[in-house]
């Protein structure tokens, strides 16, 4: 039985790059996947987002946050953090700059 999809919610600053798409649903292949696996799937059809959220090593950019069910994954295990089925994942541009 398929698991509930994960909802990846994009920040406003990135939506213009993908035709106004605000949210990407990613089917869960099992009970859980890592943030890295989730982003691989979420960005498969929106390649331009990959370079915005991650550097070429696959690391989340310094001023980008990924929240999994309201918890800041970038403070914990980062791209290795586990994303449960049905999770809500927010990609957020950090409140930084001058």
């Amino acid at each position: 039985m398929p698991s509930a999809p994960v909802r990846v919610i994009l920040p406003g600053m990135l939506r213009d790059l993908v035709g106004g798409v605000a949210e990407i649903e990613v089917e869960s292949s099992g009970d859980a996947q890592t943030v890295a696996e989730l982003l691989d799937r979420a960005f498969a059809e929106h390649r331009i987002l990959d370079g915005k959220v991650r550097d070429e090593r696959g690391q989340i950019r310094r001023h980008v946050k990924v929240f999994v069910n309201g918890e800041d994954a970038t403070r914990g295990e980062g791209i290795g953090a586990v994303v449960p089925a049905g999770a809500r994942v927010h990609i957020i541009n950090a409140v930084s700059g001058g």
Partner: protein
Amino acid sequence: MTETVVAIGTRKGLWIARSSDRTEWTLEGPHFLMSEVASVAIDTRQGRSTVLAGVKSWHWGPTVQASTDGGRTWTESAERALAFPSDTDTALERVWQLTPDPNDADVVWAGVEPHALFKSTDRGERYELVRGLWDHPHRPTWEPGFGGGAVHTIVPEPGHPESMLVAMSAGGVYRSADGGATWSPSNPGIRAGFMPDNEYPEYGQCVHKVARGQGDGELFAQNHNGVYRSSDNGQSWQSIAEGLPTDFGFTVLAHPTRPGVVWVVPVADAGERIPPDAQLQVQRSDDAGATWRRQAAGLPDHSYTCVLRDAAGLDSADPVGVYLGTRNGDVFASADEGETFQRIATQLPDVLVVRAAQLV
């Protein structure tokens, strides 16, 4: 109708100034608002009106964007245009320099941070790491300058595709005689006064900018303390700082058709970084640095700003246009080779790069 275009990259976006007569100017922008634009190239080869920009969003990272209509509209590749290969375990920080190759109209070079050179063979759509420089045994010992460690200067040699030069702060000048496959330091005569013992090391000089002159093998270099000329294509360097108000500065420009004509923008001192006597000015030499004269008509006094290494450029008209951008967001243009300047933009963010060209 020929149009003069001045691309102005700043800390928070790109502006484009346009003029049909280099007297009346319009200003468009910002493009890429809130993103730093540290490098621009205007590619007029084969009649193109292509503008390439190294754009860095503080949130969404660095990239290269392209315009084929003279900077009016821009596109970004969905895939990363420029990225380090996975085996380097390195991430791109910033694109510092974009240089169309004079020998191959499909080639564009990119100098980036961390210290690396990339090459595009498809007019700037995709770039690949130049392994010869990346694998150089000196690379781990190149120190970052205050702005970061980057290949910030790329000087190909027209008519000799095998010959090119790069410069970096603080690695110095490196030359290749085989199209970039192998590289050697080439700093004889360039002083590194900040070094405690050997002031003339093989490499490690803080070269701020190098420009190719029109004399045989002629190059000019502005250093962190020191202004130099080479007449043997960078194999050796001689000081030409005598007669200047200061030997510090960031940028150097060489006339595109007349040998021996060179401009620098002097900066009072490494510890001050303001114009000498608070008078914004360029210093021009018509004899390859033997003598200098100040050009400041139309430039402000009581000025405490600074012109950074890429914030000055020339167009290709006759007489040549000279353009300066300042850290306090002014851009000045001269249509008479520096004799008089007018302000064509003001109140912009700090200017990082200025490039000018005539588009048909």
